């Protein structure tokens, strides 16, 4: 992918707008229990920030900011965070994903905390998986210049 390095307007505007996108994603993430939002949406918006960066500044810079190796770690961690809450409640003798297990004395507080952790897991996984999909497609070179080892 050829980065549009020479377009000053694009670069300046992008630099201004990316922090706002990421901040908005965090708002959607952590406000999801009160308003519209949640992990899915936040993950997508967060990933969109990086996709925009990659589109304007090139894939190399983007994957230096957020390497695919790291994403390969974050994605399973998010799933484990989600499932971990469920396993924790199972071990505590409650039903799978029964948030009451987190704080049995204050079930309402436990529900808040439970959904926050769960949504964080969802957000991390959605963000990393979407960005990985983008990297996988955008990083593909033309078939004729590929050796067999590059694939997969």
């Amino acid at each position: 992918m050829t980065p549009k390095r020479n377009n000053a307007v694009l670069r300046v505007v992008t630099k201004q707008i990316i922090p706002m996108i990421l901040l908005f994603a965090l708002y959607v993430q952590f406000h999801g229990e009160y308003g519209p939002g949640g992990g899915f949406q936040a993950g997508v918006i967060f990933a969109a920030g990086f996709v925009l960066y990659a589109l304007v500044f090139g894939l190399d810079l983007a994957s230096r900011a957020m390497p695919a190796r790291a994403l390969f770690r974050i994605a399973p961690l998010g799933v484990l965070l989600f499932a971990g809450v469920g396993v924790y409640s199972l071990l505590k003798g409650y039903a799978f994903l029964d948030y009451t297990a987190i704080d049995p004395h204050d079930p309402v507080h436990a529900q808040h905390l439970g959904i926050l952790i769960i949504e964080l897991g969802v957000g991390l996984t959605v963000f990393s998986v979407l960005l990985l999909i983008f990297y996988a497609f955008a990083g593909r070179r033309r078939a004729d210049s590929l050796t067999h080892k590059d694939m997969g």
Partner: protein
Amino acid sequence: MNLGLINGYAAVALLMTGLYIVLAYDNPIKRLIGLSIFQAAIFVLYISMGRIAGGTAPILAEGFEHYSHPLPHVLILTAIVVGVAMLALGLALIVRIYEEYGSIDEQHILELEREPDA
């Protein structure tokens, strides 16, 4: 025609369009587009079903008594994620097919396949 059912008619039209594209075309990318239209039709059906006349978005706020049923929305969020995963996997497969055969044209590939494989 009952205008209240217009989403239903739209969903059926989209369903038929999507299914036709999936079955009638050889080009794998077009077939994926057909699948996506097919799934989008189902999403429309689900979301329309949750609507309540005069209802607002399902967010608790003062002064609003009626709100749409949120459950179909949540179900469809799940189905959309499944659809995204399917689309990404399908496109990835097409890229790999192109790399292996140098073509995604079904007829061309069938000609290549005539050669016996090991």
